[in-house]
């Protein structure tokens, strides 16, 4: 991916829109408080006609300009929540405000602040890449000339410019994913909802996508990201909301959650014999692979040094699981 994004332009646009929005608000504490929150959710409940109780009265806020990971196993209610925020799913009860605007009272105005990258591809297979973006901008009231300019910038930024005249159905999976990201950004939203944006894309592309998301975030966009890649959440987000069976089970900054780790597991390989147990609770996984469990405060360097003193040469070492994953497994599984 290139780096030709019009960062300064986007920051200016965002700030201008934000200032315009604040100027429109009556001068009361309530509005100021809401303006600090990009999204507020109060007791959101969703019961499907099938009887599934997808959301059981969840409440949390997204700070303006933050990047938050929404984590949970399949069926936790993440996509239902994204659907409710974007108007594709009808909530049973609860209240939502988007940039201070009540989603029920002024749905169109509230939706104008949001850009969404859904989990499933949902563009017309009969449309060309460029047309999909220009039309999407049009739905948000962006004039055609501005839409064309933004489309060019986004397609170049996301490496799709060469495919601008291609029908969307002819794109690869990774390209389709990037097209959906471009489409979500073409109206320059304040809030970006990413529902598993990197599902099914290769490692290189995922890293490129991370860079792009970081850049969008640096420009002031509030981001809510659902993902099954815990590494992605830890890498990108400063805040995590964990859901289990329709309820929020954790809602805290990433660093705070990581501090709670009581132990961290590492897997390493060595050709030398070792004894199971000991201070690092060693367990043999196969002939050359071992697992060590380090209590909080014990550094992995210390363990390597200790083993080295015992003349044990470690060939390679890696965390058994991503650190956030360990917290997640404990809290949300």
């Amino acid at each position, binding site marked *: 991916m290139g780096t030709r994004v019009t960062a300064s332009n986007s920051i200016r646009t965002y700030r201008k829109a934000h200032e315009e929005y604040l100027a429109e608000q009556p001068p009361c504490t309530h509005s100021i408080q809401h303006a600090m929150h990009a999204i507020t959710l109060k007791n959101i409940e969703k019961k499907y006609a099938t009887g599934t109780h997808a959301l059981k009265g969840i409440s949390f806020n997204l700070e303006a300009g933050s990047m938050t990971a929404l984590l949970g196993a399949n069926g936790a209610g993440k996509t239902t929540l994204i659907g409710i925020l974007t108007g594709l799913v009808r909530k049973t009860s609860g209240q939502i405000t988007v940039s201070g605007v009540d989603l029920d009272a002024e749905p169109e105005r509230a939706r104008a602040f949001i850009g969404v990258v859904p989990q499933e591809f949902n563009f017309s297979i009969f449309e060309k890449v460029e047309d999909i973006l220009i039309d999407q901008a*049009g739905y948000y009231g962006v004039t055609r000339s501005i839409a064309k300019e933004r489309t060019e910038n986004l397609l170049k930024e996301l490496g799709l410019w060469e495919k601008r005249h291609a029908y969307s159905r002819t794109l690869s999976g990774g390209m389709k994913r990037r097209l959906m990201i471009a489409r979500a950004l073409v109206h320059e939203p304040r809030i970006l909802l990413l529902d598993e944006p990197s599902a099914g894309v290769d490692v290189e592309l995922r890293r490129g996508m991370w860079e792009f998301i970081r850049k969008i975030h640096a420009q002031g966009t509030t981001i809510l990201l659902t993902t099954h890649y815990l590494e992605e959440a830890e890498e990108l987000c400063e805040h995590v909301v964990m859901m289990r069976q329709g309820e929020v089970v954790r809602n805290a900054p990433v660093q705070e959650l990581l501090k709670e780790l009581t132990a961290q597991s590492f897997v390493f390989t060595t050709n030398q014999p070792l004894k199971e147990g000991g201070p690092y609770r060693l367990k043999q996984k196969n002939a050359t692979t071992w697992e060590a469990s380090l209590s909080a405060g014990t550094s992995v360097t210390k363990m390597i040094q200790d083993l080295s003193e015992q003349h044990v040469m470690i060939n390679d070492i890696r965390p058994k699981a991503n650190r956030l994953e360990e917290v997640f497994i404990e809290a949300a599984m």
Partner: protein
Amino acid sequence: MAYSPTIAYLTIARKEINRILRIWTQTLLPPVITQSLYFVIFGAFLGSRIGDIGGQSYASFIVPGLILMAVVTNAFSNVASSFFGAKFQRSIEEILVAPVSPSTLLAGFCTGGVVRSLLVGIIVFLISLFFVPASITHVWAIIYFSLMTAIFFSMIGFLNGMFARKFDDVSIIPTFVLTPLTYLGGVFYEISHLPGIWQTVARFNPLVYAIDGFRYGFTGSASTPIALSAITMFVLTLALGLTLITLLRKRVGLQS
């Protein structure tokens, strides 16, 4: 930048019209061929044996009905298939997540239906000139009734598309509702020729008013007072439009 519903409307309408023109062999050509066959069979072959109706040849009598029949079926099928297709592909979500109001969404899709049906109507009219000489008495009636009919049946198509869950559902209304309404709406005969009870039943068919008013534009005579036909079509169209906007506001058939 202030949000502009006009741009959103123009975007949806442009997309719909581009689709119609891009696949003109599916959207414009087939109805023209079908209506031409009606002219050949009912106008030229059978018409000469039927004799005059209301002082004009049978071929001249059926021209307005056949034009409006094309308007009805094309307005309906364009919006029903396009809207349901967008729902089926889930590309409708592109619009549903945007700040597009129910009236803008409805107007955008219905514009496609109106444009297609009127284009087909004009082509069918031009083809009719090969069979019968042109006879236009009240241009306003032709424009008014064709437009109201196109809008009304575009909205019927939209309603069908909203509730349809599978492709079969899109063909139910044309088969069980539109075809009977069209054939019993006075395309091929005058309502006043029906037996008493059937004349009363026919008064509940909106197409009776549409066809009668449209025919008035060509022939200058109508079996129903023209003001009644005009008001009926207006009221029905307005009522349907408001109903659809209410349903769209609640996102009926569009939300889980």
